């Protein structure tokens, strides 16, 4: 390549990097601001102009985790809820999506559409029916009830997402496995699953994130036993005042599990992109 062609390429890279940094900053700013606020005292938070030099304190984190408004037990509740929802969703969604993608099901189109329709109902319209049903079966304010409710919106979404990944896997790969006398389940496990690990990673992140951030159902269908962080954090927004510094500290602590899941899933997503048997293959 000649040097005349390289210069525009370098310039392009610089522009792209700057643009990416700018866009990233827009998204990162609120988080960075929360970090700064969480290290300030409540009175410094309101100071104008905002103080840049201040004595950082970890008191807010201590108060958020052990104070009289502690979110510690709620954090555990959220972890149990989101993890159980995610694991169950993936276990159920992968075979269901496989069936939609591969099997000659009667009314396949209709069923697929029906799965999606459930996503079109605004969640607020479901609060009352869910409340009545859970009340009837005695599952209000229980993990079982809450996880079941979360599955009703995570499953359709996960199935719909996984179908698109599965449809991209060429049938020939499975057929090769059948020639080697693999059963359908063996083929799914040994041949298909490694190919869609990226898709599973993406789905896991979305499902976990949705369950983690859920507020509406949690506040109405939960209670003293099931009180995830999204609800518990409202204790810092009391009727008299908003405790911004403690709220920021609590929010940052609540972000950690999501970040961990994101990093873990990202590895699978990258592997899924690079390990594939047929790169760039599929039906697109």
């Amino acid at each position, binding site marked *: 390549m000649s040097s005349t062609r390289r210069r525009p390429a370098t310039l392009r890279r610089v522009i792209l990097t700057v643009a990416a940094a700018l866009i990233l900053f827009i998204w990162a700013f609120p988080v960075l601001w929360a970090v700064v606020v969480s290290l300030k*005292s409540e009175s410094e938070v309101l100071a104008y102009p905002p103080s840049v030099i201040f004595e950082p304190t970890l008191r807010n984190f201590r108060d958020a985790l052990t104070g009289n408004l502690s979110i510690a*037990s709620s954090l*555990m509740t959220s972890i149990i809820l989101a993890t159980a929802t995610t694991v169950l969703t993936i276990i159920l969604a992968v075979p269901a999506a496989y069936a939609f993608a591969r099997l000659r099901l009667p009314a396949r189109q209709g069923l697929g559409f029906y799965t999606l329709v459930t996503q079109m109902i605004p969640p607020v319209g479901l609060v009352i029916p869910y409340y*009545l049903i859970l009340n009837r079966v005695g599952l209000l304010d229980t993990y079982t009830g809450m996880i079941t409710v979360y599955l009703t919106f995570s499953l359709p979404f996960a199935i719909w997402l996984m179908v698109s990944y599965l449809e991209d896997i060429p049938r020939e790969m499975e057929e090769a496995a059948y020639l080697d006398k693999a059963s359908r389940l063996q083929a799914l496990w040994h041949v298909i699953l490694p190919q869609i690990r990226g898709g599973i990673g993406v789905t896991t992140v979305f499902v976990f994130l949705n369950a983690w951030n859920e507020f509406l159902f949690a*506040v109405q269908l939960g209670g003293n036993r099931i009180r995830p962080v999204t609800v518990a954090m409202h204790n810092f927004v009391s009727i008299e005042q908003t405790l911004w510094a403690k709220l920021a500290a609590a929010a940052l602590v609540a972000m950690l599990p999501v970040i961990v899941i994101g990093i873990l899933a990202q590895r699978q997503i990258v592997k899924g992109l690079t390990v594939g048997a047929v790169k760039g293959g599929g039906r697109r």
Partner: protein
Amino acid sequence: MSKVHVNPIGRRTVLKGAASAAALLAAPAVLTRRARAEATIGGDIDWKQASGTRITVGVIPAGYFQNLEAVLPQFREISGVDVTLEATPPGQIRQKAILDLSSKTGKWATSATDPMYYPLYVANGWIDPLTDFLDKPELTDKAWFDYDDLLENWRGAASIDGVPYGIPYEGEATIQIYRSDVYEKLGLSPAETLDDYAANAAKVNDPANRLWGAALRGFKGAGQNMYIYPSIFLAFGGKWFDGDKVVVNGPEAAAALDWYVSLLKSTSPEGVENWNWPDIADAFSQGTLGSYIDTHNSAALLADPSKSKVVGKVGFARWPKGPAGRRVTSIWNWSFPINASVSDKEKAAAWLFIQWAGSKEVQAATSYGFEGGYKRLGVNRTSLWESAEYKGLLDGIGAGLTQTTMDSIKEDTDVDWRPRVPQWAALGEVVATAVQSALVGQATPAAALDAAQGQVDGIMKQ
């Protein structure tokens, strides 16, 4: 709040592990609170009559309920009732209570209730008349509880046709709060009329030096712009009813909304239409507002030197008079009704709790008698408002706070501050939306209210 009382979470050991971890964290708090509890209470009744009953009480995250939770171990000891408070954000507590009451789940034996919801609850038979409890000597020691000592207007707000349905626990009056130093420097006195108020604000307003004239709640919704607008509307001579018809677009309404909009547009910081009460109090505490009209409760924050830059520079006055010659304060309090669909045993337990929480002893113990830093400023009894201890607490925040608030509660309260109809929840939303659309300039006040009237008519027909 939930973590203090860790409930058995589930069957699985994993979950038990989580619960015991939480219990460990919470243990020191529980122990110290228990140790402090001196479980005595007056009242010549059998406090143990509902012993062993479990009830849950819905409340909101607020200092005044946290204080109640701190002394709750005393009630458990006195009554043997296992009561837990469930803190639910103020934006959701009403829906949650309605869900519980309408589907007869009986989750909350009682919950902190907005006075405006009594017509709806009573019309549907969701809550019990308290005469069933107040008039039974085995349940209530009338001489000791002294129902008539509860502030009259608050009692009235929790009653329908003279029948009590709720016992007020905490409440407030809306008052003018102003910077006495700034007013003095500019030779201003607190506003007597709404015109004065706008004129004062205009004189104080100096955005270049980060001082704005005044601010009122601008955010849309119940307890937000609908906490302010009804007072202005009535002060302008507005009437909610024309016969049986609810009217929101009369000429007084348009004039009231016009006053509200032009005050905020000309003398409030930008973005005030999204401000909530804590935002206003925060701004005032940082010295950037000349005045605001809001709950007397917010004054507590202004006396806290760790958060406030205006300690000792605060004055108080009643709501200014409107063109109709009236001062109208909000009527705001949280009261406890009894859920009609819980068992008799739970009703008795709930009544014991309500009676205990509303008693003079507990009101004092959660206010000036409280050991923690935050002391309640909205107790429910005339005798307490007149006591030297309580006056000392309020006037310590700023001279004249007790008198101003008491006068407002007695003189400026209108029990029909908002139209007490079962449809209010929906009507309030419609008016709130109209007020905000005028505040943000989407529509003129008159046009916004005309549009609202159409929706109001539709709702009332249903």
